[in-house]
């Protein structure tokens, strides 16, 4: 399986992108909508014009026409052939590369079982539900056992259990055959779960590439941290085990209790949505609760960002506009 390398790739949606996807790696391409993910895949697949160069195994394939690049591509708009039945759709790639018929049928059967659509073999795309279509498209992309796999939000319209099942299947396939894969998603959990590495794209620029932990614990710039919810990173100075799977963590004057996952904690990330602000003490035990001063507020149409001063930390909280109103929060409040 080749490794994919992009050098200074540029077009209407990508700006000077450099990316290296190692051999057998599953690289997750994470980014908000309109970031340029699909465009990037199209470039790798050779479907649209671009400047710069794309290399497989260090060999430039800019001049290689699409159908020789040997990529399997699951399109975001699935582009199933309307005039072919489900099985014919899946068999298309195999027929294209002259697989003997019996192998083809076997492979098609296998694929349909993999994505659990055996019963739809003779249906036509028009008569399929969204999720069924998506799975057909997945099967079609996988069938010819491509050297490179490009998956553009492959599970976006599947329910939890189905998508969970398919994620595991994809993982397994990737382990078994080590197909170099670029996996586009906008779902952080999916990204964390699937990716060997994650690269975050924003407005056609790659902001950061690294292991999931990297990305989530030290986002390298504001945009990323905002996109993944800009957690408040607290350095953990020292921690005390409370027993019963809890740890108390001291960080510059605050002590926070967190459930213990057995491993040593260095940092903790608190996402703004998880910080609740209330004027009067809520019921329940007094844990992880602090008095804070509102330093400043950034009201937006529906969410208000609030910068809090707690001890000598400054935390960023995010509250629904109406909460802010009913609490009548203002800067300087206690």
């Amino acid at each position, binding site marked *: 399986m080749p490794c994919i390398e992009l050098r200074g790739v540029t077009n209407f949606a990508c700006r000077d992108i450099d990316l290296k996807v190692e051999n057998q790696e599953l690289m997750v391409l994470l980014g908000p909508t309109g970031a340029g993910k699909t465009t990037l895949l199209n470039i790798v697949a050779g479907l649209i014009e671009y400047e710069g160069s794309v290399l497989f195994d260090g060999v430039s394939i800019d001049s290689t*026409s699409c*159908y020789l690049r040997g990529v399997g591509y699951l399109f975001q708009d699935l582009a*199933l052939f*309307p*005039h072919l039945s489900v099985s014919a759709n899946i068999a298309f790639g195999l027929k*294209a590369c002259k697989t003997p018929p019996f192998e083809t049928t076997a492979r098609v059967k296998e694929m349909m079982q993999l994505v659990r659509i055996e019963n739809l073999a003779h249906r036509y795309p*028009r008569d399929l539900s969204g999720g069924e279509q998506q799975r057909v498209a997945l099967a*079609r992309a996988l069938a010819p056992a491509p050297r490179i796999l490009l998956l553009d939000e492959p599970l976006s319209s599947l329910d939890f259990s189905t998508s969970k099942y398919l994620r595991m299947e994809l993982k397994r396939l990737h382990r078994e055959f080590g197909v170099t894969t670029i996996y586009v998603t906008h779902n952080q959990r999916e990204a964390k779960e699937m990716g060997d590495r994650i690269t975050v794209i924003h407005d056609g620029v790659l902001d950061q590439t690294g292991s999931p932990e990297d990305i989530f614990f030290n986002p390298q710039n504001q945009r990323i941290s905002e996109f993944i919810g800009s957690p408040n990173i607290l350095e953990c100075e020292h921690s005390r085990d409370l027993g019963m799977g809890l740890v108390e963590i001291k960080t510059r004057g605050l002590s926070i209790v967190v459930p213990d996952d057995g491993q040593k904690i260095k940092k903790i990330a608190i996402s703004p949505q998880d910080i609740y602000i209330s004027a009067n003490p809520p019921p329940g035990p007094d844990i992880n609760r602090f008095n804070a001063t509102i330093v400043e507020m950034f009201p937006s149409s529906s969410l208000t960002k609030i910068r809090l001063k707690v001890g000598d930390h400054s935390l960023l909280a995010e509250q629904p506009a109406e909460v802010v109103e009913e609490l009548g929060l203002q800067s300087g409040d206690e």
Partner: protein
Amino acid sequence: MVPILVFLALWEIVARLNVVYGHFFFPPFSLVIRELFYLIVSGVLADDFFRSLIRVLIGFSAGSFCGFVVGVLMGWKNLIDKTFGPILSLIYPIPALGWLPLLMLWVGIGDILPISIVFITCFFPVCYNTATGVKGVSPNYVAAARTLGASEIKILFSVILPLAVPNIFTGLRLVAGMAWRVIIAAEMVAIPTGIGALLIRAESLMRMDIIISCLMVLSVMCFLFERCFNYFERKLTVRWR
């Protein structure tokens, strides 16, 4: 079927209620049928009809096929379109009258003459419609086929053409009628056989009844052609359209 019967009934009535000489120019259906019957039993029609049929079939299939091929190429490769498009649109409007002398010179008097005229007639509509159909195929499907490793040819045959079927058949349905229409003009020239010849003869004798009988034969033939095209088109597209 019903509409046709209504149509024929209307014809009969209108014709019967007609003005002087009306019968002559516009005989009622029943009369025409009678005449048709006589023509058939007298054996005049059969022979001419089959000769025309064969000419039409040959000219039609050859012309449509070439039109199809050129149309596919034009719709498929923009360059070819740019190249041949203008030339075709220059040649297209040349009427049979214009072709006749040249054809006379090249192929001489004989069966080839009407056949080639039918050919020319059939070529353009099929070509234009096919090109439109091919151009109309959504690029997404082509892209998908490409990523699946299908060569251009494979894409053409397994994706583009199937999706262009409706337009192609529209072209065929169009020229099926034209072929029968033009065979008359073609056979009027020098070829003493075929329905065209019979027609022109009847015309010069002002035998309106025979003329209309011949026209009815044309109609029926075109109708049959159209039916079977519809049939095939449905066969090809019903499952996904």
